């Protein structure tokens, strides 16, 4: 009887460890502080003050690399991060906790999903991350206000996307981890201020709007591809 009890307990432990997922967690930042939507004013590198209303991006093609250099891909999973919805900050990957050397992911949606009609789940066009007049996903969105903006109500609005080869705005992010223990949670900061500097300085006064694929969208994508920083590995 005791043996049976032990066996059942053992099975529960096994099931329990299977049920545990590796968590990928994103925290929205403005510089070194947590991003507060609407209420806080931040300064871009060019000195333009901003408040942020919306901050969203698609995370896809997540891969982790174990300490032996083997990559474990997460196929056909698309996640939509939204700063205004904390439930979207945490992604439970279908991968068990393990020793890791790196994590990589794409900010954007691959071309196949851009040309295959209407998708479901995180890719449902209803979520507003979709251009109806020029079919394609908006990979990342940053909207807010700035006194530097020449637009009505002093808004700025950056909708970045584009899957065609000469306007491809998908960016792959690679973050080294080098863990010495089994990783259960990887916490990554996403800094909105990086949208305005980096490879291409972005002035709200000069470019308050980006609403289509093309050169500006790719430049902004280059900028925000540097917005991620590893905060914590647990």
């Amino acid at each position, binding site marked *: 009887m005791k043996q049976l009890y032990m066996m059942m307990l053992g099975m529960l432990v096994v099931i329990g460890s299977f049920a545990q997922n590796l968590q990928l967690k994103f925290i929205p930042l403005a510089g070194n502080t947590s991003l507060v939507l609407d209420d806080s004013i931040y300064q871009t590198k060019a000195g333009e003050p901003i408040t942020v209303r919306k901050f969203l991006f698609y995370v896809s093609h997540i891969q982790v690399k174990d300490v032996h250099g083997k990559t474990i891909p997460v196929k056909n999973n698309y996640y939509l991060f939204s700063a205004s919805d904390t439930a979207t900050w945490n992604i439970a990957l279908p991968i068990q906790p393990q020793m890791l050397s790196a994590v990589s992911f794409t900010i954007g949606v691959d071309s196949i999903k851009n*040309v*295959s*009609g*209407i*998708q*479901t789940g995180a890719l449902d*066009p*209803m979520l507003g991350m979709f251009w*109806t*007049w020029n079919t394609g996903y908006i990979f990342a969105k940053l909207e807010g206000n700035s006194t530097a903006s020449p637009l009505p109500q002093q808004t700025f609005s950056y909708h970045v996307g584009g899957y065609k080869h000469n306007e491809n705005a998908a960016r792959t992010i690679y973050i080294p981890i080098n863990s010495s223990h089994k990783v259960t949670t990887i916490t990554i900061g996403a800094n909105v201020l990086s949208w305005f500097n980096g490879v291409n300085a972005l002035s709200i006064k000069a470019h308050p709007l980006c609403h289509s694929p093309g050169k500006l969208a790719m430049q902004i994508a280059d900028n925000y591809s540097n917005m991620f920083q590893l905060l914590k590995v647990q």
Partner: protein
Amino acid sequence: MKWQITIAGILIFLVIATAFTNNGSKPTPLVFKVPPGWPQPVYDFKQNPVTLQGFELGRKLFYDGRLSKDGNFPCASCHQQFAAFATYDHNLSHGYDNSFTTRNAPALQNLAWQKAFMWDGGINHLDAQPLAPITAPNEMAETVENIIKKLSADAEYRAMFKAAFGSPQITTQRIMQALSQFEVMLVSSNSKYDKVMRGEAQFNLPESLGYAIFKQKCASCHAEPFFTDFSYRNNGMPMDAVLKDEGRMKITGNPSDSLKFKVPSLRNVAVTEPYGHDGRFFFLINVFDHYRKNMVVGPTTDSLLKNKLPLSNYEIGQLTAFLYTLTDTTFLKNPRFAPPNFNNQPPAEHVH
């Protein structure tokens, strides 16, 4: 004797199994027929197989004002069956709150062969097309969320979604796939021209003379059997000062695409007036006069039209006779494409 029993047993099992499958309300497949001599369609039927239940659902959605903000603008308000699903007698169509659309509503026919949609080809999949008019503030002005809310409150819709897709859930994907199932079936391939091509009828003299002129002067862009090659071209229509429509360039960002628009099909051309991307030509003669006299040759004007398109009055007469053979009354009057429970009322209330 034993094998006979076995066979009888298998047969009985099959009959029962079939009965059970039908009972499980599997939708009834509809056959999509490719007209003889036509290429295979580009629409991926494997991703969205057409069924009777899906088609009927799509038809109901197409004619349902609830897809618009105030209930007045179903798809059919701009796409009328008697006009080959274009807007009859309107250069620009009417949208929500006394607004105008910015382009002439195109005929909806033979959509399963189209790779891209809209005058500028900006939409790359038939399933994705309805999102544009549904959400545009000057068209149906509605959100998909709201549509799902409205339709989910209707038991008839829940039952129809279940019949078409296996469960009553109403999603963006299912709404769009049902609309596509209706739209891909809008095949026009039974005009007098088609009958002549099949050897079932004969052109009269002006029609056959017109066909010869057509092949010589028009068919390089308006290619048979669709009467369009689906390309984007600048045919010398100067930009409207109010609309400021750059056409294809809006999608590609490429200045060489400035003022290029999709070559429209000429099928059912006799009932799809006005013509042109902004409907500026109210009659066929305006189009002919554009080509022979009024067109403006600019840097992106099609190389085939660098010297305009000379047409004599005689040629215009014969061409008109031929173009009238492209009217397909079996398509324009097919009750399967009419509103559900069609009872001789106009296909859709047209609100001014």
